[in-house]
């Protein structure tokens, strides 16, 4: 018998569409794989050859800074060849359908597609129609699995474990793919989840999944170990879900005064970009309990782990590290 992983070792499927489809073991595998990748970004030469020769297309149908750059760094630090395609200025703006775009890319023999798309289900749609691995970088209001994973990793860094942790997701859950990915990830890993925000933006059906609904932000703060504060989009006010941003801040804003009244100190997460003074006050965002920047740092490690695992990587990637060290320059 040659050395092979134990039969029970979890693997990921072809695509990463959402955390809903993953088992707790698969999520832990990604988080555990991300741990050593954190260190790669701390090196002087931030590169390992794990995905050398792999071609990855970053297909972004929606504006994105953080997620797109984070994926690109993750890909480059794994030595993949990457191409960025934005919807504007491409064939998409000429009316090409999603499936045609994907098939054309695939005809150029790519290995992976990272997709951000305004339609819920777009990543799954693509994944079921092309052979390449598909990674969801946010599809409509459905899921943003790598954001969920980086939030889980950040919480695990802060608390040591996720079992029994109380996390309140605050704000516009209805339109949030970040909220959905967090909910699934946290529930699967044994955390308790509460949703807090205006009832117009909280789908009450989620209660049936074992999620707690807390109408008042002060109660959520009193209950939780950590708050994940969602971005409130200006369009929600225009669509009549909330009366005004001012009122939102007064009723649901995470402020220092509110946090100071809490029985314990909370960890504050935010997926960004922030609306300072709306869902979160600046002194909270910049305060000692904010892990907003560590989230961003963890984002690269988590995405490296996902890319690496989907490409079929096993636990031996560090073999490549020695090669890089020996080769000196990398690529």
């Amino acid at each position, binding site marked *: 018998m040659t050395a092979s992983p134990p039969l029970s070792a979890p693997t990921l499927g072809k695509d990463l569409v959402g955390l809903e489809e993953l088992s707790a073991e698969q999520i832990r595998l990604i988080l555990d794989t991300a741990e050593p990748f954190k260190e790669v970004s701390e090196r002087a030469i931030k590169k390992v050859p794990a995905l050398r020769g792999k071609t990855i297309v970053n297909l972004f149908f929606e504006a994105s800074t953080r997620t797109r750059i984070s994926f690109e760094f993750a890909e480059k630090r794994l030595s993949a060849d990457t191409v960025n395609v934005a919807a504007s200025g491409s064939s998409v703006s000429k009316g090409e359908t*999603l*499936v045609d775009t994907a098939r054309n890319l695939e005809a150029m023999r790519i290995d992976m597609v990272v997709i951000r*798309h305004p*339609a*819920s*289900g777009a990543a799954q749609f693509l994944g079921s129609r092309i052979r390449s691995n598909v990674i969801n970088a946010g599809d409509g209001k459905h899921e943003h699995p790598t954001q969920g994973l980086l939030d889980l990793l950040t919480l695990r860094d802060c608390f040591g474990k996720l079992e029994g942790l109380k996390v309140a997701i605050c704000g516009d859950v209805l339109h949030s793919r970040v909220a*959905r990915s967090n909910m699934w990830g946290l529930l699967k890993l044994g955390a308790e989840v509460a949703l807090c925000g205006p009832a117009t933006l909280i789908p009450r*059906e*989620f209660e049936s999944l074992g999620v707690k609904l807390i109408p008042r932000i002060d109660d959520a703060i009193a209950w939780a170990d950590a708050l994940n504060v969602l971005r409130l989009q200006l369009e929600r006010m225009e669509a009549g879900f909330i009366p005004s941003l001012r009122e939102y801040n007064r009723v649901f804003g995470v402020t220092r005064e509110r946090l100071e009244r809490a029985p314990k100190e909370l960890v504050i997460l935010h997926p960004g970009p922030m609306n300072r003074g709306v869902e979160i006050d600046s002194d909270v965002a910049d305060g000692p309990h904010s892990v907003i920047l560590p989230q961003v740092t963890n984002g690269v490690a988590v995405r490296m782990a996902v890319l690496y695992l989907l490409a079929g990587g096993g636990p031996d990637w560090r073999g490549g590290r020695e090669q890089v060290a020996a080769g000196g320059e990398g690529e």
Partner: protein
Amino acid sequence: MSDLLIRGGRVIDPSRGSDGPADVLLRDGKIEAVGRNIPMEQGTSVIDATGKVVAPGLVDLHVHLREPGFEHAETIASGAAAAAAGGFTAVCAMPNTDPVTDSLATVGFVVRQAIRAGQARVYPIGAVSLGQRGEQLTEFGELIQAGAVAVSDDGKPIRSSHLMRTALEYAKNFGIPVADHCEDTSLAQGGAMHEGIVSARLGLKGIPAAAEEIMVARNIILAELTGGHVHLCHMSTRGSVELIRWAKSKGLRVTAEATPHHFTLTQERCEGYNTNAKMNPPLREAADRDAIRQGLADGTIDCIASDHAPHHYDAKEREFDEAPNGIVGLETALGLALRELVEPGLLSLADLVARMSTIPARIFHLPGGTLAVGAPGDVVVFDPERRWEVRREALHSKSMNTPFLGETLRGQADVTVVGGRVVFQRPGRPTS
């Protein structure tokens, strides 16, 4: 045309309350006689219906045949052929074509294309408002003269209560119903599926049951105000069933239809962003589906209509939000109704024939729906037991957008006769 004798079947005719072994003789396009051991004369064509049901041809009050304007998805000829293959001898075509069926010319076009096709009869439904814009009434009188049997803005709900009121009042002059797609668009706007746990999980905007029920309630109240006849299209919620029950208890002129997909499927079918489960009204919850079945069983819902909505392959092959609503239904309606309603004992075979033929014909005042002597020779012969698989290549419609592909249905039409002429005979099923 030679005489046609359909022999040895179980003849079910709810219009006369009869159900039993008999022969049916058609002559000159009409029902000539129904009875035991009808003697065969020289030159008579014979169909052997032994072991099968012989019934008045099925009547569908709600189909979309896409012509003119969307002939890549369906034509009147292909739709009428699909109807015949499904056992339907008459279908009513909704006016949301391009151009909209809102004038003498466009109604007449549908009539002429249907005659040219020579399959199932196609009765045009005229638009309620010009261009289905919800503003100005169409010329009902002229539309009816050209062949329209009802009016509807289906595809679009009638938003203005004033327009609905005037349509119901004006329609009384002609004795036709106004059929409405009940949807409060301010609640449903942008919705892609039923609002519930599945839409919440999939991150799709939901259409609450209330969007339908508000308009059902409005239409019932306007039926009371006007004394007009409102026909409620494709009912999908338990609340709607309750409202209709209330309207009927008050004796109002309210009729309602339900589709096979709404009495068969639930919101879970949308899992995986399955665009063949995207329709409007959307697939609802199990309790809604059960209420629709119960409504059909107790007569609260008068009839079954397919809402046959063909779409080209490309149109459904895309993001769920962007995909169009609707599924083809003419060729699966009978098999689903037998499997879902007759097999579990909710409806008897005779009740089923009533809900798919006799009653819909009465609602729109169509000839047919009966085997009475002198009635049009529109007859279906179907096997109520046969299990068959829905296969893409066996469909007669130009489109194949159905969530039932690969499913096993029960019961299938073998022969469809329109005006005494066999327009469909299932290949490989010897019947004569």
